[in-house]
């Protein structure tokens, strides 16, 4: 138990370190973009007709603390970030926490939903694909999963929108109906949300599912061919018990391993799908901040959240792996 706690602590420390490192990279990238926040904001003012002098810019810099050394500013930013305080958006002059608000949780929810959907489908289907000898079923599944792998998510999103607009007169975009957009959460709003959110979850889950089916099928076929399965059959273990307790049980560890990887993929695909479906969540805000307004503080905060999430899921899968796989457990406990 003590060793296990030590292992968990070590992994947590490692995860924390990774997060710091990522934040450093994000912060450095923000730094490398020409022009700092003060210049950009005042340039924006300038375009509105105000007269701006160099002295004004310098004054603004000092006000924002931009004159301090890079590392010191990063350390401050990181310190505040871990306390959940990301400062103000440079261009919008709004507190980032207010700006992000529930959007970040919507994004994380959509991604986790897609991941759960993907594996809820992939595990049973992958098991069937690995054990079935029916050529029609196997080739059918293969075709569907190749389609899932080959068809880009944004194209799928566009196709669904187009189809729905032509047939139903409803483009299925957004996360809320207009009347609920700013309403407080209640049952009606939750139902409305669920009525909208299934589409992005489906689209993001589509290729993840295809990918996960291939993973599950390959891992399980691999295990089924191993000698210990024949050995178990030779001892009289049979049927579903043989399948679930032997190859399926042993294919579980690498599948758990692939969860973190798949979540990463889904996160990568979220912003573009969000843009097409005009979702009001953090992914679209990230594109907005990065590509349009060049709002580094906002973009940094979002990336920090998303990577934090990926690191957290990898931390969790590491711990779960150690719990379910005696080979890993014993290597920790010595």
């Amino acid at each position, binding site marked *: 138990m003590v060793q296990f706690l030590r292992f968990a602590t070590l992994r947590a420390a490692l995860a924390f370190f990774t997060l710091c490192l990522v934040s450093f990279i994000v912060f450095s990238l923000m730094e490398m973009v020409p022009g700092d926040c003060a210049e950009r904001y005042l340039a924006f003012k300038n375009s509105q007709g105000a007269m701006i002098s160099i002295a004004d810019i310098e004054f603004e810099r000092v006000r924002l603390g931009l004159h301090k050394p890079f590392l010191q500013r990063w350390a401050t930013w990181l310190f505040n970030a871990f306390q959940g305080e990301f400062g103000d958006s440079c261009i919008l002059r709004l507190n980032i926490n207010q700006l992000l608000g529930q959007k970040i949780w919507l994004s994380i929810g959509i991604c986790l939903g897609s991941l759960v959907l993907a594996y809820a489908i992939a595990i049973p289907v992958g098991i069937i694909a690995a054990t079935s*000898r029916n050529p029609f079923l196997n080739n059918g599944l293969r075709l569907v999963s190749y389609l899932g792998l080959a068809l880009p998510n944004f194209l799928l999103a566009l196709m669904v929108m187009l189809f729905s607009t032509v047939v139903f007169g409803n483009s299925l975009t957004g996360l809320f109906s207009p009347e609920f957009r700013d309403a407080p959460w209640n049952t009606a709003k939750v139902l409305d949300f669920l009525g909208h959110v299934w589409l992005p979850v489906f689209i993001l889950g589509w290729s993840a599912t295809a990918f996960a089916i291939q993973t599950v099928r390959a891992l399980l076929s691999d295990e089924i061919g*191993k*000698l*210990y*399965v*024949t*050995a*178990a*059959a*030779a*001892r*009289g*273990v*049979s*049927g579903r018990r043989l399948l679930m*307790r*032997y190859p399926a*049980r*042993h294919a579980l*560890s690498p599948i758990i391993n692939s969860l973190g990887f798949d979540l990463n993929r889904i996160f990568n695909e979220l912003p573009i799908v969000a843009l097409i479906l005009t979702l009001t969540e953090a992914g679209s805000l990230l594109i907005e901040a990065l590509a349009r307004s060049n709002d580094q503080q906002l973009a940094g905060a979002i990336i920090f959240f998303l990577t934090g999430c990926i690191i957290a899921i990898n931390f969790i899968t590491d711990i779960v792996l150690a719990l*379910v*796989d*005696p*080979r890993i457990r*014993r290597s920790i406990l010595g």
Partner: protein
Amino acid sequence: MSRLIDVENLTLQFDTDEGRITAVDDVSFSLDAGKIMGLVGESGSGKSVTAKSLMKLNPRNAVYGENTKITLHLDDGPVDVMSLQNDHEMKVVRGGSISLIFQEPMASFAPAISIGDQMIEQLLIHTSFSKSQAKEVSIEMLDRVGISDPSMRFSQYAFELSGGMRQRAMIAMALSTKPKLLIADEPTTALDVTIQAQVIDLMKDLVTEFGMGIIFITHDLGVIAQTADNVAVMYLGRLVEQGTVRDVIRSPAHPYTRGLLAALPTLDDIDAPLTPIPGDIPSPLERPSGCVYNTRCQEFIGPRCSAKVPVFSQIDAGHAAACHLYDRAGDAE
């Protein structure tokens, strides 16, 4: 001595993309209780496939010949193995009255299930023991095969045991259901010579103690000479020679058996060159016509060898070889 198993005309083919491959061709043998039979041959000769046939454990593309008949003689009557259909019926030949141990015990224990759990599972399938009784029997069995601290080993995993220990645990598991027949598929090949001797002694002891029969599969004639009562030599899916160990090793009749024995290294004369059998074992896709060994035979005696499949001829009492050299009836033709 009572008869334990009769195998008659065992023929087994595999349906593959390249066509139907013959793995075992018209093999017949018998084994009495309390005896050890060695099944010898090079890799690819069909030894393992033959052994697995006794448990109907071959893959789904296996097709058994129509005349194949395998009869297991148990205390409560004979069992026709070929007629066993579902998993429930097959329990008797899978871990019940027949147990199988493998060459590689590491690969035959599931890596993420403890040894004890796998032993209990088998006992619960085949006996009416409760879980705690099954645990007791398993630990007793581990102790019996010479594993020290059996109750600790019971809760360990295969990867935590040494090679010899794993093989012992494997034997303990195979014997825990008190099978009548133990099939040992190259059980000592992966072991050090010293441990090999221990494991062989252990198996001999257990035969005496439990009164069961063993089919010992190996390519190592040296091991067979120490272990078995009878030998059957297999080449490319066919039996070519059968007899007592003494007869077959001392006066091998079939040219293939002679070749195998000549290929054995000897410690008496370390300068003596090894004499391997020339040529390679042919692909099962290109089985030679006539005698399957005729393409490599050093004592080839003419077109008969490549035209006609030789039948078994009696050499001595209880010693027979399938070779045209001894086929008196064939001479008359």
